């Protein structure tokens, strides 16, 4: 696993976009290690659909920034093979929805190779992708599918919610010897935040308290974090102090951080954009009740997407995905406030 967590030093930080932070992570790791290379659809000259790989082609050349045909199963598999053969590929899949075309290579090959070889084989592969709703992209370009990868032993799953974590987690992901599914959020690319000028890493399995509070614990990740932070501000105005916990990686999961907060607040709300059924929130809830049942003062609330494909119509899309008001209502139910 990776090295120590650094925290942003305000003096040396500047404000950059989430997509710029990711770009910096790729650039720094490619400068540092010649075995790192990128593959994906339209990532070279075009710089990627969300401009994450802009400028990397001119700096590193076409042998390290490779445009692929629309062949997800095979270029992800090529990433697996190159990783086994000693490279550190970062493969971009345009939408998390398209990872479904490559599930054999991700779940049967990358995830299991080290295990099946009795620990001898390694697959230092990063699969960068993005998910989530918010732009009217409809049912096949708006899903939140982290639960699929969370379910498969052998994969690491990162879900960064701001530029600082995006950069630090991606740099760590590239250095890990296990396959990582790195899920960005399309609505976060143009959000900004403080990122240090100096190099830093964010360790997998170490969550972050995004806001301290004593009345209720809200656990969320990715694009639900900004939404929960805004909800927490509004609740603070009503005297309810919410603690917002961002696990940052779902595998490994920082259960200790979660449980520490739960023991303090005794009320829990878990917020995920993904559909409720079979989701990560349900699993975290089951772990909390198993480990901290005696501390709970109310049933665990889950705020999740509706169990439906995401509709195109913007109003209906909004209705399918947790909003600030949903979080506020759930927190109030949890703390028995009106």
């Amino acid at each position, binding site marked *: 696993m990776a090295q120590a967590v650094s925290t942003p030093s305000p003096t040396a930080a500047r404000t950059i976009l989430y997509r710029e932070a990711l770009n910096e992570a790729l650039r720094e790791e490619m400068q540092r290690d010649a075995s790192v290379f990128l593959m994906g659809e339209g990532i070279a000259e075009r710089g990627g659909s969300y401009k994450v790989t802009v400028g990397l082609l001119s700096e590193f050349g076409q042998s390290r920034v490779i445009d692929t045909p629309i062949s997800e199963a095979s270029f992800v598999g090529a990433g697996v093979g190159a990783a086994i053969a000693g490279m550190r590929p970062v493969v971009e899949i345009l939408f998390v929805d398209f990872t479904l075309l490559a599930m054999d290579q991700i779940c049967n090959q990358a995830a299991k190779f080290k295990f099946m070889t009795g620990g001898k*084989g390694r697959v230092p592969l990063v699969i960068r992708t993005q998910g989530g709703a918010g732009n009217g992209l409809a049912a096949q370009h708006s899903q939140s599918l982290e639960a699929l990868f969370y379910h498969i032993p052998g994969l690491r799953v990162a879900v960064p919610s701001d530029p600082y974590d995006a950069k630090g987690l991606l740099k760590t992901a590239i250095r890990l010897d*296990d396959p990582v599914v790195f899920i960005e959020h399309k609505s976060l690319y143009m959000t900004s935040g403080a990122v240090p000028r100096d190099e830093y890493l964010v360790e997998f399995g170490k969550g972050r308290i995004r806001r301290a509070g004593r009345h209720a614990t809200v656990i969320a990740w990715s694009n639900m974090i900004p939404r929960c932070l805004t909800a927490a501000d509004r609740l603070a105005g009503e005297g309810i102090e919410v603690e917002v916990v961002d696990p940052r990686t779902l595998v490994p999961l920082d259960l200790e951080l979660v449980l520490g907060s739960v023991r303090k607040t005794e009320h829990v709300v878990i917020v995920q954009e993904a559909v409720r059924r079979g989701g990560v929130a349900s699993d975290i809830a089951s772990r909390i009740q198993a480990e901290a049942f005696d501390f709970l003062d109310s049933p665990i609330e889950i705020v999740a997407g509706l169990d439906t494909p995401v509709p195109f119509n913007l109003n209906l899309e909004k209705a399918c995905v947790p909003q600030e008001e949903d979080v506020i209502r759930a927190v109030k139910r949890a703390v028995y406030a009106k």
Partner: protein
Amino acid sequence: MLSGHPSGFLAGLYRTLYTIRHFETECIKLYRDGFIRGYFHPYLGEEAIAAGACAALRRTDFITSTHRGHGHCIARGADLRSMVAELLGRSTGYCQGLGGSMHIADVAAGNLGANGIVGAGLPIGVGSALASKLRGDDRVTVVFLSDGAVNNGVFCESLNLAATWSLPLVLLIENNQYAVSTPVEQATREPELYRRGGAFGVSSHQIDGNDVLAVYEKVKEACGACREAAGPVLVEAKTYRHGGHHVNDPGAYMPKDRLDYYKSRDPVERGRRILLQSGVPEEDIRLLESQIERTMEEAIEFAKGSPEMSTEEFVKFVEAY
């Protein structure tokens, strides 16, 4: 007919052919006696493809294998003790008993793994070939695949990627004419599988997969092309299984006359005949065979005497999962 190859080389080929044949025959007995569990897909009848192809490779080259992969491992120089131990699920096996027959890999020896998913080795081979190209080394990857795999989507994708990127990749189709039990001519309108390569701009060839020298020569030529950046190359080696899909499939759907025809062209017997014709005396061949039999006996003893990973060790092994 003399092959033109030195008898030492021919003896090496025959050693591989006979080792695979004997390994499979003995392991099937172990299976029948309950020592080996799970799926077991014998390579009997197809030995010349692995033996010929791997003889054409350098130690630094890569292969990817299939669910019918014991022959590829052996031809790539696998240690028989670790192989039998793996089939018996012992901790001294290649994968500590966690992989089994369908998942033996030996990355250090360039064997990137057998595979339980038909066709899945193709993209992985594209990846190792890509790694070679990016590093600028001259390693070639040979992907062993089946007539079943050519009808999986990744065949088209991977062939196209390898061609587009001019990768040092040899796609070696072991056309044993059945995908499990479905005859190849029922699974495609064009059963001459090598013809598919032309549509992707890939140099493509068909050979007798029961002729070890034909395989060796064609794969050597293909590897040479790959090392000169003229890859990829597709080779279809026609062959036939000596039995069903796995040890518990009697293969009742395989017509007797066809099976007899291919058995009359048995790759191991043909390899032996070539060796005899090169001037190696019968008793020397018999000596070689008995050495292999003795090595296999020792491997079986070793495997049977080896421990299994304990549950406690397993729990520790998977801690990070």
